[in-house]
């Protein structure tokens, strides 16, 4: 957890969680779909990643969470290059919710959540420690999934399943959550449930970075908005500056209206 010099890939801000320098990714023998770009995530932020379909949002969060390695450039967790960390060590710091979430997971919620303690478990241990069991119970409590915890994921509705996966992320007790479309395919009630969970986690000190198409969610949950376009960062700044009609229209090539009501902001498409 040291900080300081960062040989090779340029400077590292002393207190960034993630520092990405000139990262790009291209499929084997294919055109690059992302980058090169620079990005930093600092503690306590809540970063919304927006952008049109195919802009490279999912590739970006897969790179940041370490499940995919960049074709060029380098990533650091604090001062450690990702290559120097094991997947398990990185998973203790970053809890990642992928976009492709299986619908036929043959595990119960409690089994999935307990398995998510994997990065904390020594290789030789045979079961959960007391600390693991505590983390599982806390996670089930934060998402209020306790009463459903014995049910297999295949039997759950889409919204319940999403809460189950988020419970698994919570049990990892990472300091940064990277979430790929956490409210995708959810009905309004479950969207609200996910949003309030994320707000509570953020207020409790967890750093968030999430991909979304829901601009109102971004406006109400994010402290910073990053807009991707054709694999590059097209805008990066506070939500008040980016989530306003003129810049949105330019970024998404569609008309928007923004309505502010006290703490709350509504961002919507201007339908014909």
């Amino acid at each position, binding site marked *: 957890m040291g900080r300081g010099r960062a040989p090779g890939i340029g400077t590292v801000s002393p207190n960034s969680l993630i520092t990405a320098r000139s990262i790009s990714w291209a499929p*084997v023998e294919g055109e690059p779909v992302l980058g090169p770009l620079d990005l930093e995530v600092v503690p306590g932020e809540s970063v919304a990643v927006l952008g049109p379909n195919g802009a490279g949002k999912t590739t970006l969060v*897969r790179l940041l*969470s370490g*499940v995919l390695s960049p074709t060029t450039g380098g990533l650091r967790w604090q001062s450690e290059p990702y290559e120097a960390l*094991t*997947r*398990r*060590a*990185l*998973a*203790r710091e970053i*809890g*990642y*919710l*992928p*976009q*492709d*979430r*299986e619908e036929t*997971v*043959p*595990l*119960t919620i409690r*089994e*999935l959540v307990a*398995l*998510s303690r*994997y*990065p904390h*478990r020594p290789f030789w241990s045979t079961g959960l420690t007391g600390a693991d069991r505590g983390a599982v119970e806390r996670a089930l409590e934060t998402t209020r999934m306790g009463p459903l915890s*014995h*049910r*297999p994921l295949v039997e759950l509705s889409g919204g319940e399943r999403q809460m189950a*996966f988020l419970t*698994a*992320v919570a049990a*990892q007790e990472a300091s940064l959550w990277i979430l790929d479309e956490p409210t995708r395919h959810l009905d309004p009630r479950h969207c609200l449930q996910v949003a309030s969970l994320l707000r509570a986690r953020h207020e409790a000190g967890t750093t968030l970075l999430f991909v979304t198409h829901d601009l109102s969610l971004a406006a109400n949950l994010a402290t910073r908005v990053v807009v991707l376009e054709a694999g590059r960062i097209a805008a990066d700044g506070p939500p008040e500056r980016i989530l306003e009609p003129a810049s949105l229209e330019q970024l998404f090539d569609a008309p928007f209206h923004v309505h502010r009501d006290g703490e709350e902001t509504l961002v919507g498409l201007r339908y014909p």
Partner: protein
Amino acid sequence: MKSPTSRSWKLLLLAAGTLVVVVVAPTVGSHPVSLADAFRGDPTASTILWKLRLPRVLLALLGGGLLASSGAAFQTLFRNPLAEPYTLGVASGGALGASLAFLVAGGRAGALLPVAGLAAFGGALAATFLVLLLGRRSGVGSHGLLLAGVAVALTCQALILFVQYLADATETLRMVRWMMGGLGVVGYREVLWVLPWALLTLGGLFLWRWELDLLLAGEEMAAGRGVALGRLRLIVLLLVSLGVGALVAVAGPIGFVGLIVPHLLRGWIGPGHRILLPACFLVGGGFLVLCDLGARTLLAPAELPVGIVTALLGGPFFLWVLRRRRTG
């Protein structure tokens, strides 16, 4: 829901069942032998029981257990219920290696178990690495691997036919018989040869049970929870090629045990690998002992290669799995 205790009880039940099969199977055959006679020291009975049938039953137990546990790990790893060592090139690669050893060593190969064994290892490992290499180039993740595995298996089978064509008539006949899969051993040499490799494979797979469990939630979920997928694939493929290579060298490729057993058990005892892997060993072992019993007795005094028995059961089962997947 399957509680941990009910799963443990089921495992105990399977262990008892397998024990009964292993004790009873050696007494059954073209010439029934009673355990009492063998223990009393009746020379014919003890020769048949201790020298002929027990080694064979033990080899079937180890082999079946190895194939079924490997199949369970492969099905989770490749996220496909039709994956097993036989369909994925590992067994075919091993068979190709052993065939080459038979061709080169001629009639002496039977006396040179370690040579055939090493050749089978080499073949299984070469096939595995080819699968990894091709899989990496042909697509992302497990789908690319699965396609590469099928392609390598088919190529190996074609090469085996070529090797058989090159061999002289007696040798060809021997190879063809061996390719049918058989457990017709005399004495404990083969059992003692397979034992350490089987233990290595089974123990190794069991050590990786948590990672395999996480794979049930999807590859991205597993990676996000800290599973190093590339390393896990490499290790499981290596472990399975070692065990299956060793088995193929003595018994030939025996198909479908690794397909049927894990598939049926997963429904009954749940998908968690801590229980599933040992259960697959027990049931796979017991199943192959029974198949071999059928092979010994159905056409007695003639013997059927056990690979034919498992294939006759496995082919229709394969179709049933496909059908159920389409409708379910």
